[in-house]
Protein backbone atom coordinates (compact mmCIF):
# COMPACT_ATOMS: atom_id res chain seq x y z
CA UNK A 1 0.00 0.00 0.00
CA UNK A 2 2.89 2.32 0.77
CA UNK A 3 4.39 1.80 -2.67
CA UNK A 4 1.07 2.40 -4.40
CA UNK A 5 0.53 5.60 -2.46
CA UNK A 6 4.02 6.86 -3.13
CA UNK A 7 3.82 6.14 -6.84
CA UNK A 8 0.46 7.83 -7.17
CA UNK A 9 1.78 10.89 -5.35
CA UNK A 10 4.47 11.23 -7.98
CA UNK A 11 2.19 10.85 -10.95
CA UNK A 12 -0.82 12.85 -9.92
CA UNK A 13 -1.13 16.49 -10.80
CA UNK A 14 -3.88 17.74 -8.57
CA UNK A 15 -1.97 19.08 -5.59
CA UNK A 16 -4.94 18.90 -3.31
CA UNK A 17 -5.36 15.19 -3.89
CA UNK A 18 -1.65 14.80 -3.31
CA UNK A 19 -1.96 16.37 0.13
CA UNK A 20 -4.70 13.88 0.98
CA UNK A 21 -2.54 11.04 -0.22
CA UNK A 22 0.30 12.30 1.92
CA UNK A 23 -2.02 11.95 4.88
CA UNK A 24 -2.61 8.33 3.97
CA UNK A 25 1.12 7.79 3.48
CA UNK A 26 1.98 9.01 6.93
CA UNK A 27 -0.79 6.88 8.40
CA UNK A 28 0.71 3.83 6.79
CA UNK A 29 4.12 4.77 8.16
CA UNK A 30 2.63 5.05 11.61
CA UNK A 31 1.16 1.58 11.11
CA UNK A 32 4.63 0.34 10.15
CA UNK A 33 6.14 1.73 13.30
CA UNK A 34 3.43 0.10 15.34
CA UNK A 35 4.20 -3.31 13.86
CA UNK A 36 7.85 -2.77 14.68
CA UNK A 37 6.85 -2.00 18.27
CA UNK A 38 8.31 1.51 18.20
CA UNK A 39 5.56 3.13 20.16
CA UNK A 40 6.94 6.62 20.74
CA UNK A 41 7.88 7.04 17.10
CA UNK A 42 4.43 5.88 15.99
CA UNK A 43 2.83 8.41 18.31
CA UNK A 44 4.95 11.24 16.97
CA UNK A 45 4.37 10.18 13.36
CA UNK A 46 0.62 9.98 13.85
CA UNK A 47 0.42 13.36 15.56
CA UNK A 48 2.81 15.26 13.31
CA UNK A 49 2.57 13.56 9.95
CA UNK A 50 -1.12 13.06 9.61
CA UNK A 51 -2.28 16.11 11.49
CA UNK A 52 -0.12 19.17 11.49
CA UNK A 53 1.77 18.51 8.27
CA UNK A 54 -1.46 18.11 6.32
CA UNK A 55 -2.82 21.34 7.81
CA UNK A 56 0.33 23.32 7.04
CA UNK A 57 0.54 21.94 3.50
CA UNK A 58 -3.05 22.94 2.92
CA UNK A 59 -2.20 26.39 4.20
CA UNK A 60 0.61 26.55 1.67
CA UNK A 61 -1.72 25.40 -1.07
CA UNK A 62 -4.13 28.12 -0.17
CA UNK A 63 -1.38 30.61 -0.85
CA UNK A 64 -0.21 29.12 -4.13
CA UNK A 65 -1.68 27.33 -7.11
CA UNK A 66 -3.71 24.22 -7.00
CA UNK A 67 -2.47 22.28 -9.97
CA UNK A 68 1.09 21.38 -10.71
CA UNK A 69 2.42 22.93 -13.88
CA UNK A 70 3.04 20.56 -16.75
CA UNK A 71 6.64 19.55 -16.60
CA UNK A 72 8.83 20.46 -19.52
CA UNK A 73 10.61 17.26 -20.28
CA UNK A 74 14.26 17.51 -21.07
CA UNK A 75 16.03 14.22 -21.27
CA UNK A 76 15.43 12.55 -17.97
CA UNK A 77 17.84 9.73 -18.68
CA UNK A 78 20.78 11.14 -16.79
CA UNK A 79 18.96 11.86 -13.50
CA UNK A 80 17.33 8.47 -13.66
CA UNK A 81 20.70 6.80 -14.10
CA UNK A 82 22.21 8.72 -11.18
CA UNK A 83 19.33 7.81 -8.90
CA UNK A 84 19.43 4.16 -9.87
CA UNK A 85 23.16 3.89 -9.35
CA UNK A 86 22.97 5.61 -5.99
CA UNK A 87 20.12 3.35 -4.93
CA UNK A 88 22.02 0.23 -5.98
CA UNK A 89 25.15 1.36 -4.15
CA UNK A 90 23.14 2.00 -1.00
CA UNK A 91 21.54 -1.41 -1.17
CA UNK A 92 24.94 -2.99 -1.69
CA UNK A 93 26.18 -1.14 1.36
CA UNK A 94 23.41 -2.44 3.52
CA UNK A 95 24.13 -6.03 2.56
CA UNK A 96 27.05 -5.88 4.91
CA UNK A 97 25.03 -4.66 7.85
CA UNK A 98 23.71 -7.14 10.38
CA UNK A 99 20.05 -8.08 10.25
CA UNK A 100 17.63 -5.93 12.15
CA UNK A 101 17.31 -7.29 15.65
CA UNK A 102 20.29 -9.58 15.28
CA UNK A 103 21.58 -10.15 18.80
CA UNK A 104 25.18 -10.31 17.63
CA UNK A 105 25.22 -6.84 16.12
CA UNK A 106 27.63 -4.41 17.78
CA UNK A 107 24.79 -2.09 18.73
CA UNK A 108 23.17 -4.82 20.68
CA UNK A 109 26.40 -5.94 22.28
CA UNK A 110 27.63 -2.71 23.77
CA UNK A 111 25.27 0.21 23.61
CA UNK A 112 21.77 -1.17 23.94
CA UNK A 113 22.32 -3.48 26.92
CA UNK A 114 23.76 -0.60 28.90
CA UNK A 115 20.63 1.42 28.30
CA UNK A 116 18.25 -1.43 28.83
CA UNK A 117 19.83 -2.82 31.95
CA UNK A 118 20.97 0.27 33.72
CA UNK A 119 18.43 2.84 32.70
CA UNK A 120 16.00 2.00 35.46
CA UNK A 121 18.64 2.18 38.18
CA UNK A 122 20.25 5.33 36.93
CA UNK A 123 17.23 7.29 35.81
CA UNK A 124 14.34 5.64 37.54
CA UNK A 125 11.61 5.69 34.92
CA UNK A 126 10.19 2.76 32.99
CA UNK A 127 10.13 4.41 29.57
CA UNK A 128 13.61 3.86 28.20
CA UNK A 129 12.96 6.00 25.15
CA UNK A 130 12.35 9.06 27.27
CA UNK A 131 15.33 8.39 29.46
CA UNK A 132 17.62 8.02 26.46
CA UNK A 133 16.13 11.05 24.74
CA UNK A 134 16.18 13.43 27.65
CA UNK A 135 18.97 12.21 29.84
CA UNK A 136 21.54 10.06 28.10
CA UNK A 137 21.37 12.04 24.86
CA UNK A 138 20.27 15.32 26.33
CA UNK A 139 22.56 17.36 24.09
CA UNK A 140 20.96 15.95 20.97
CA UNK A 141 17.53 16.88 22.22
CA UNK A 142 18.75 20.37 23.00
CA UNK A 143 19.86 20.57 19.38
CA UNK A 144 16.44 19.39 18.23
CA UNK A 145 14.65 22.05 20.25
CA UNK A 146 16.92 24.72 18.84
CA UNK A 147 16.22 23.43 15.33
CA UNK A 148 12.48 23.71 15.88
CA UNK A 149 12.94 27.19 17.31
CA UNK A 150 15.01 28.16 14.28
CA UNK A 151 12.33 26.84 11.96
CA UNK A 152 9.79 29.03 13.67
CA UNK A 153 12.17 31.99 13.45
CA UNK A 154 12.69 31.27 9.77
CA UNK A 155 9.00 31.31 9.00
CA UNK A 156 8.49 34.50 10.95
CA UNK A 157 11.40 36.18 9.18
CA UNK A 158 10.31 35.14 5.73
CA UNK A 159 6.62 35.79 6.06
CA UNK A 160 6.58 38.82 8.27
CA UNK A 161 6.09 39.12 11.95
CA UNK A 162 2.67 40.55 12.56
CA UNK A 163 0.99 39.36 9.39
CA UNK A 164 -1.74 41.19 7.55
CA UNK A 165 -4.40 42.97 9.45
CA UNK A 166 -6.87 42.32 6.63
CA UNK A 167 -8.37 39.35 8.34
CA UNK A 168 -9.92 41.46 11.03
CA UNK A 169 -12.58 42.76 8.68
CA UNK A 170 -13.58 39.34 7.38
CA UNK A 171 -16.11 37.15 9.10
CA UNK A 172 -14.94 33.70 10.01
CA UNK A 173 -14.95 31.33 7.09
CA UNK A 174 -16.87 28.59 8.80
CA UNK A 175 -19.65 30.74 10.20
CA UNK A 176 -22.59 28.58 9.27
CA UNK A 177 -21.31 25.21 10.43
CA UNK A 178 -23.31 25.26 13.63
CA UNK A 179 -23.01 21.56 14.43
CA UNK A 180 -19.26 21.70 14.02
CA UNK A 181 -18.95 24.71 16.28
CA UNK A 182 -20.93 23.15 19.12
CA UNK A 183 -19.13 19.83 18.99
CA UNK A 184 -15.71 21.43 18.77
CA UNK A 185 -16.35 23.66 21.75
CA UNK A 186 -16.98 20.53 23.80
CA UNK A 187 -14.04 18.65 22.34
CA UNK A 188 -11.20 21.17 22.62
CA UNK A 189 -10.83 21.08 26.44
CA UNK A 190 -10.58 17.30 26.25
CA UNK A 191 -7.85 17.51 23.63
CA UNK A 192 -5.90 19.99 25.75
CA UNK A 193 -6.28 17.75 28.76
CA UNK A 194 -5.06 14.80 26.77
CA UNK A 195 -2.06 16.77 25.58
CA UNK A 196 -1.14 17.50 29.19
CA UNK A 197 -1.57 13.82 30.03
CA UNK A 198 0.82 12.81 27.27
CA UNK A 199 3.31 15.47 28.35
CA UNK A 200 3.57 14.25 31.90
CA UNK A 201 2.96 10.57 31.30
CA UNK A 202 5.91 10.40 28.95
CA UNK A 203 7.94 8.91 31.72
CA UNK A 204 5.84 5.79 31.92
CA UNK A 205 4.25 5.31 28.55
CA UNK A 206 4.67 6.71 25.07
CA UNK A 207 4.68 10.44 24.95
CA UNK A 208 6.89 13.24 26.05
CA UNK A 209 7.45 16.80 25.02
CA UNK A 210 7.27 16.63 21.22
CA UNK A 211 4.03 14.71 20.94
CA UNK A 212 2.36 16.75 23.66
CA UNK A 213 3.41 20.01 22.03
CA UNK A 214 2.03 18.93 18.68
CA UNK A 215 -1.31 17.87 20.14
CA UNK A 216 -1.62 21.06 22.14
CA UNK A 217 -0.88 23.08 19.02
CA UNK A 218 -3.37 21.01 17.03
CA UNK A 219 -6.12 21.85 19.51
CA UNK A 220 -5.51 25.59 19.17
CA UNK A 221 -5.29 25.20 15.40
CA UNK A 222 -8.68 23.47 15.44
CA UNK A 223 -10.15 26.37 17.36
CA UNK A 224 -8.66 28.87 14.93
CA UNK A 225 -9.87 26.94 11.90
CA UNK A 226 -13.46 26.91 13.04
CA UNK A 227 -13.83 30.23 14.78
CA UNK A 228 -11.60 32.37 12.62
CA UNK A 229 -8.16 33.88 12.92
CA UNK A 230 -9.31 36.96 14.85
CA UNK A 231 -10.70 34.93 17.70
CA UNK A 232 -7.77 32.55 17.55
CA UNK A 233 -5.38 35.43 18.00
CA UNK A 234 -7.39 36.64 20.95
CA UNK A 235 -6.94 33.27 22.63
CA UNK A 236 -3.17 33.28 22.21
CA UNK A 237 -1.67 36.53 20.98
CA UNK A 238 1.23 36.32 18.53
CA UNK A 239 3.38 38.31 20.98
CA UNK A 240 2.84 35.69 23.66
CA UNK A 241 3.69 32.98 21.15
CA UNK A 242 7.00 34.61 20.40
CA UNK A 243 7.82 34.73 24.09
CA UNK A 244 6.79 31.10 24.42
CA UNK A 245 9.13 30.03 21.65
CA UNK A 246 12.10 31.54 23.34
CA UNK A 247 10.99 30.48 26.79
CA UNK A 248 11.00 26.81 25.88
CA UNK A 249 14.58 26.85 24.69
CA UNK A 250 15.50 28.96 27.69
CA UNK A 251 14.00 26.41 30.09
CA UNK A 252 15.99 23.66 28.47
CA UNK A 253 19.26 25.53 28.47
CA UNK A 254 18.50 26.93 31.89
CA UNK A 255 18.27 23.46 33.36
CA UNK A 256 21.70 22.74 31.97
CA UNK A 257 23.14 25.93 33.34
CA UNK A 258 21.52 25.27 36.70
CA UNK A 259 23.25 21.94 36.95
CA UNK A 260 26.49 23.71 36.05
CA UNK A 261 25.96 26.17 38.87
CA UNK A 262 25.18 23.37 41.29
CA UNK A 263 28.49 21.72 40.66
CA UNK A 264 27.91 19.09 38.00
CA UNK A 265 28.46 19.06 34.25
CA UNK A 266 26.17 20.80 31.79
CA UNK A 267 22.85 18.96 31.69
CA UNK A 268 23.95 16.53 34.37
CA UNK A 269 20.69 16.01 36.22
CA UNK A 270 22.14 14.09 39.12
CA UNK A 271 23.02 17.22 41.05
CA UNK A 272 19.61 18.87 40.80
CA UNK A 273 18.20 17.34 43.97
CA UNK A 274 19.34 15.61 47.11
CA UNK A 275 19.30 12.25 45.41
CA UNK A 276 20.45 11.21 41.92
CA UNK A 277 17.15 9.56 41.01
CA UNK A 278 15.09 12.55 42.07
CA UNK A 279 17.47 14.82 40.27
CA UNK A 280 16.97 12.86 37.07
CA UNK A 281 13.20 13.08 37.49
CA UNK A 282 13.20 16.84 37.97
CA UNK A 283 15.64 17.36 35.17
CA UNK A 284 13.69 15.29 32.66
CA UNK A 285 10.43 16.93 33.72
CA UNK A 286 11.82 20.42 33.18
CA UNK A 287 13.48 19.54 29.92
CA UNK A 288 10.43 17.86 28.40
CA UNK A 289 8.31 20.81 29.49
CA UNK A 290 10.65 23.16 27.65
CA UNK A 291 10.41 21.01 24.54
CA UNK A 292 6.62 20.95 24.71
CA UNK A 293 6.36 24.73 25.11
CA UNK A 294 8.60 25.46 22.14
CA UNK A 295 6.93 22.94 19.84
CA UNK A 296 3.47 24.29 20.66
CA UNK A 297 4.48 27.88 20.09
CA UNK A 298 6.20 27.15 16.78
CA UNK A 299 3.29 25.11 15.41
CA UNK A 300 0.73 27.73 16.26
CA UNK A 301 2.91 30.59 15.00
CA UNK A 302 3.45 28.99 11.64
CA UNK A 303 -0.24 28.26 11.30
CA UNK A 304 -1.26 31.81 12.22
CA UNK A 305 1.18 33.16 9.68
CA UNK A 306 -0.08 30.93 6.89
CA UNK A 307 -3.72 31.59 7.58
CA UNK A 308 -3.27 35.33 7.81
CA UNK A 309 -2.08 35.39 4.25
CA UNK A 310 -4.44 32.93 2.67
CA UNK A 311 -6.03 34.22 -0.51
CA UNK A 312 -8.25 31.30 -1.38
CA UNK A 313 -11.36 32.09 0.60
CA UNK A 314 -13.90 34.12 -1.25
CA UNK A 315 -14.75 36.59 1.47
CA UNK A 316 -11.77 38.66 0.45
CA UNK A 317 -13.68 40.01 -2.49
Amino acid at each position, binding site marked *: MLAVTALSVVFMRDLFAIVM*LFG*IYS*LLSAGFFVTMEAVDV*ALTEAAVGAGVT*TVLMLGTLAMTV*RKEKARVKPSSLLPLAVVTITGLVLIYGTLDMPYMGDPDAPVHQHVAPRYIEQSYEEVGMPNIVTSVLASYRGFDTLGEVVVIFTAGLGVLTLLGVSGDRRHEKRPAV*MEHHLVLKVITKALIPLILLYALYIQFHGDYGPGGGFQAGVIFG*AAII*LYTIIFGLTKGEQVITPLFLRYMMGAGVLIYGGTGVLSLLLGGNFLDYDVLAHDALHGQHYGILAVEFGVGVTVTAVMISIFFNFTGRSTLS*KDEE
Partner: protein
Amino acid sequence: MYFAISAAILVVMVLALARALLGPTVYDRILAVNMFGTKTVLLIAVFGLISGRFDYIDIALVYALINFISIVAVLRFFEYGDHREQES
Protein backbone atom coordinates in the same frame (compact mmCIF):
# COMPACT_ATOMS: atom_id res chain seq x y z
CA MET B 1 -8.46 -15.18 15.84
CA TYR B 2 -7.77 -11.48 15.87
CA PHE B 3 -5.98 -11.86 12.59
CA ALA B 4 -9.32 -12.27 10.85
CA ILE B 5 -10.42 -8.90 12.17
CA SER B 6 -7.13 -7.26 11.20
CA ALA B 7 -7.46 -8.79 7.75
CA ALA B 8 -10.99 -7.41 7.43
CA ILE B 9 -9.86 -3.94 8.47
CA LEU B 10 -6.94 -4.11 6.05
CA VAL B 11 -9.28 -5.03 3.20
CA VAL B 12 -11.43 -2.02 4.03
CA MET B 13 -8.35 0.18 4.06
CA VAL B 14 -7.26 -1.01 0.63
CA LEU B 15 -10.73 -0.32 -0.77
CA ALA B 16 -10.77 3.14 0.78
CA LEU B 17 -7.35 3.82 -0.71
CA ALA B 18 -8.65 2.82 -4.13
CA ARG B 19 -11.54 5.20 -3.77
CA ALA B 20 -9.12 7.94 -2.73
CA LEU B 21 -7.15 7.36 -5.91
CA LEU B 22 -10.14 7.13 -8.20
CA GLY B 23 -12.80 9.41 -6.76
CA PRO B 24 -14.01 11.79 -9.43
CA THR B 25 -14.61 14.70 -7.10
CA VAL B 26 -12.41 15.96 -4.32
CA TYR B 27 -15.09 15.31 -1.74
CA ASP B 28 -14.88 11.62 -2.56
CA ARG B 29 -11.21 11.72 -1.71
CA ILE B 30 -11.83 13.51 1.57
CA LEU B 31 -14.42 10.92 2.47
CA ALA B 32 -12.03 8.10 1.66
CA VAL B 33 -9.26 9.61 3.78
CA ASN B 34 -11.66 10.04 6.69
CA MET B 35 -12.65 6.40 6.48
CA PHE B 36 -9.01 5.37 6.18
CA GLY B 37 -8.23 7.30 9.32
CA THR B 38 -10.97 5.71 11.37
CA LYS B 39 -9.91 2.26 10.21
CA THR B 40 -6.32 3.00 11.18
CA VAL B 41 -7.48 3.86 14.68
CA LEU B 42 -9.25 0.51 14.89
CA LEU B 43 -6.31 -1.35 13.41
CA ILE B 44 -3.90 0.09 15.96
CA ALA B 45 -6.28 -0.73 18.80
CA VAL B 46 -6.58 -4.34 17.57
CA PHE B 47 -2.80 -4.56 17.25
CA GLY B 48 -2.56 -3.36 20.81
CA LEU B 49 -4.74 -6.18 21.96
CA ILE B 50 -2.90 -8.76 19.87
CA SER B 51 0.51 -7.86 21.21
CA GLY B 52 -0.73 -7.23 24.73
CA ARG B 53 0.88 -3.82 25.15
CA PHE B 54 -1.32 -1.15 26.63
CA ASP B 55 0.53 1.74 25.06
CA TYR B 56 -0.94 1.32 21.62
CA ILE B 57 -4.30 2.55 22.76
CA ASP B 58 -2.73 5.96 23.46
CA ILE B 59 -1.65 6.11 19.84
CA ALA B 60 -5.13 5.15 18.69
CA LEU B 61 -6.62 7.89 20.85
CA VAL B 62 -4.25 10.51 19.48
CA TYR B 63 -4.95 9.42 16.00
CA ALA B 64 -8.72 9.62 16.41
CA LEU B 65 -8.37 13.26 17.47
CA ILE B 66 -5.88 14.13 14.75
CA ASN B 67 -8.07 12.56 12.08
CA PHE B 68 -10.94 14.82 13.03
CA ILE B 69 -8.74 17.92 13.09
CA SER B 70 -7.28 17.06 9.72
CA ILE B 71 -10.68 16.64 8.06
CA VAL B 72 -11.93 19.91 9.51
CA ALA B 73 -8.79 21.66 8.25
CA VAL B 74 -9.31 20.26 4.76
CA LEU B 75 -12.88 21.50 4.71
CA ARG B 76 -11.88 24.93 5.89
CA PHE B 77 -9.29 25.37 3.21
CA PHE B 78 -11.61 24.06 0.59
CA GLU B 79 -14.72 25.85 1.75
CA TYR B 80 -15.70 27.57 -1.44
CA GLY B 81 -13.58 25.40 -3.64
CA ASP B 82 -14.30 24.08 -7.08
CA HIS B 83 -15.56 20.59 -7.33
CA ARG B 84 -15.85 21.17 -11.03
CA GLU B 85 -12.10 21.14 -11.39
CA GLN B 86 -11.83 17.49 -12.22
CA GLU B 87 -8.75 15.36 -12.62
CA SER B 88 -7.52 15.95 -16.16
